[in-house]
């Protein structure tokens, strides 16, 4: 729940509050519980990217994607890729962002998740490819 709240706060631009929530989550989360581990990294990556700490943000985002890729959680994996795409886009790596979005799109299509599929398609359409 904490990581979901963190995600929601970040999407609303309330980064400081999101960090406070993540600090609490960090204390109680299990190392093996893959869902919060992925989400925590993705949320932190978005926050760091907004602050301009792009290298650290990309490292965390890729870490999250790698963790999610070891699972068969399609939506979680797709969301981690969306976070990576967001970080890469802020870093100016549009191609990388588009690749992440395409990968996410495949996952959401496989899940047949209509809203996420549509949203990812929109993001992809808005991402200039070099």
């Amino acid at each position, binding site marked *: 729940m904490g990581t979901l709240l963190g995600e929601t706060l970040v999407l609303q631009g309330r980064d400081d509050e999101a960090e406070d929530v993540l600090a609490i989550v960090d204390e109680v989360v299990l190392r*093996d519980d*893959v869902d919060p581990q992925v989400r925590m990294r993705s949320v932190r990556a978005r926050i760091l990217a907004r602050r301009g700490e792009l290298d650290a943000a990309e490292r965390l985002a890729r870490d999250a994607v790698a963790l*999610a890729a070891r*699972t*068969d959680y399609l*939506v*979680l994996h797709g969301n981690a890729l969306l976070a990576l795409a967001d970080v890469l886009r802020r870093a100016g790596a549009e191609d990388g962002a588009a690749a992440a979005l395409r990968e996410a799109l495949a996952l959401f299509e496989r899940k*047949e998740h*209509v*809203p996420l599929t549509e949203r990812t398609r929109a993001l992809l359409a808005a991402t200039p490819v070099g």
Partner: protein
Amino acid sequence: MAVCAVCGSENRVGARFCDACGSSLAAPADAHEQRKTVTVLFCDVVGSTALGEAADPEALRALLARYFERMRAIVARHGGTVEKFVGDAVMAAAGGGARGDLLGAETRALARDAIVVEAVEPLELRGKAQPVVAFRLVTVERDAPGLARHLDAPIVGRVHERRPRLLERAFANVVRRRTCSLFTLLGAAGVGKSRLVREFQRGLDARIVRGRCLSYGEGITYWPVVEILKQLGVDPIDRGPVTAVLGEYDLPTTPEQIALAVRRRLEAAAAERPLVVVFDDVHWGEPTFLDLIEHVADLSRDAPILLLCLARPELLDRRPGWGGGKLNATTVLLEPLDAVETETLIERLLDGEQLEPGLAERIRLAAEGNPLFVEEMLAMVRESGEREVVVPPTIKALLAARLDQLEPSERWVLERGSIEGQLFHSASVAALATPPAPAERQLAALVRKELVRPDRPQLPAGDGYHLEQAYRYRAELGQADPVLAERAAELLAASGRTARFRGDLRAAAALLGRAADLHPSRRLALLPDLGDLLFESGEIAQATAVLDEAIAMVAGHAGEQTASGEAVIELAEQAAAVLERLGERVLLARVLAIAARNCFFVGHAQRSLEELREACELAFEVGDLYVARDCVLWMVGAIVYGPTPVGEMSRFAFPEALRLGVEPWGQFHEGFVHAGSGRFAEARERFHRGTAARGRARDPRPRGGLLDVRRRDGVEPRRSPRRRARAPDRVRSARRARRDRLPLDDGHAPRRDARAAGT
């Protein structure tokens, strides 16, 4: 060698009847081990060796025979029995107070107001690591009570304040109408009967005489009458039954003649001044004595006499019709103090003195409204400086005496009840019998005797009872039979699982906690569930403590404290293979559920789903509905998170869901389907419905359609006859059949089959 229980004589091995007195040597049919507090007397003849050398053998034998006969009579008079004679020594045991030259500290405390003692050097005794404190008895004050009540303690309580007025009204009526009235004040030992009478007597314009019934001994029938007559005095020229009762003349009399004579003596005394006759401990009164009181109450005329009888509620067992049918009889039950009254009493007794924080509260809880217990515990704490509330020997003796007077079957019920704990259930008591037997009659008697009182039950079946002063009973009743304790723990744990299934988490945690406390060998098995429950109830600190304890216990066995999710899965898979071979299906379901949950945590949603389905089916088959329901909840998560396409998610209708009481999760599942399809309004509605259903599910009250499921406590396996007959080695194929019945795409079947094959 068989020792006669009646006369103490030793008999031949195999003898069925005592050679000395003819009593049966067989143990009573209902005999079972009981813990009793007894006084053991051991004495021998001083200078017997010299006596033996000096006396003629036949003369010595005759002397010793007379000595043994006298000793046997003396012991019997005090309610004891001779255990054996060894040479010139006598060993006897009695269930009550002590007589002897040397006394231990507890005996001294019990008889402190009737004896004068002097300290002796502590004794080195066999079987005792430390020297035992002892006192030499100097004198015994014959008529003094062993333990004088401190009747100067403050009187508190709404009830206590009301009772004197009842007594005063009864007395005023007696005086106004010049009639006789029987007023019986019932109450448990220490509840304040004597204190109340003292308050009543204060400033009373009447002649007051007192007599006390004795619990044992020779010639006790008229003992209280004798005391009364001695106080009233007897006409010196009287040569009738009264003097016969007093033992002054050996005159043949009948009980009726004695009753008539006593009534006339009381009427004569009352003619001069209103008379209050206080009889204490009437529950010990012999039938003839009770007849005498009723005779006076029924037939006395034109004489203001108040017969004030103080008794424990047991009197009504011995004499159910006591006072009944009499217009001039009143019976009042004196109840324990309530919590506020007890606190007031403690404050007044402390008189400004401060106790360690929490200690007064512990005394209040332990005393359970009994003023005497409050006084004694407070005194004990002050004397010893202990921080914990301990049971003073005075109270132990009171309780032991009450327990000793119970019918064997009542005591048996109390023992079984106390195994479960302070709150116990008639169903548990019945289930702990072999074969199971109802105990309602005994429980009703115990309620009447104020040893238990009805309480709100925690279990769905049977009535609840609160064991008064439970932890003290536990000590007085002896150690609980470990086999019975384990059965009681299983009953509680099963009820806890049922409570959890119906969503009453608080009750479930209480029951599992009690089960874990009851039997150490079951504790480790129960702690994880208990921790889980507490966590689910939001009691995070308690949950952490419980789970830490479980981890520490496991660490003590296995040498490691934590394991990764993957390691848990591997271990659970190995365990599942073993359990499958053994046919341990209940445990197998639980282990599969553990593996499945960990699969989910580490990110293997599809595999988790398969394991959950299997565990769910199996759990449902064996009747472990909590596990079955838990599996359904996790299955929703595995479907939503995992690779199952949204379009296929609606295939999972969870037909068992409603039967298992997981309607909320069925709604949530549908909500996810709608959300994933972009139908947000429908999704929101489903989530709202699920939330509302979840609120209903937390309501512990039974609901119609689920009642039949909830009644089952999870102990009885729910299997069809066909499945019951299934041999363990066929479990594997049965599991495959289950899998085939389910509407799921089994992409991971080979893995499961491999495990089942032990590879």
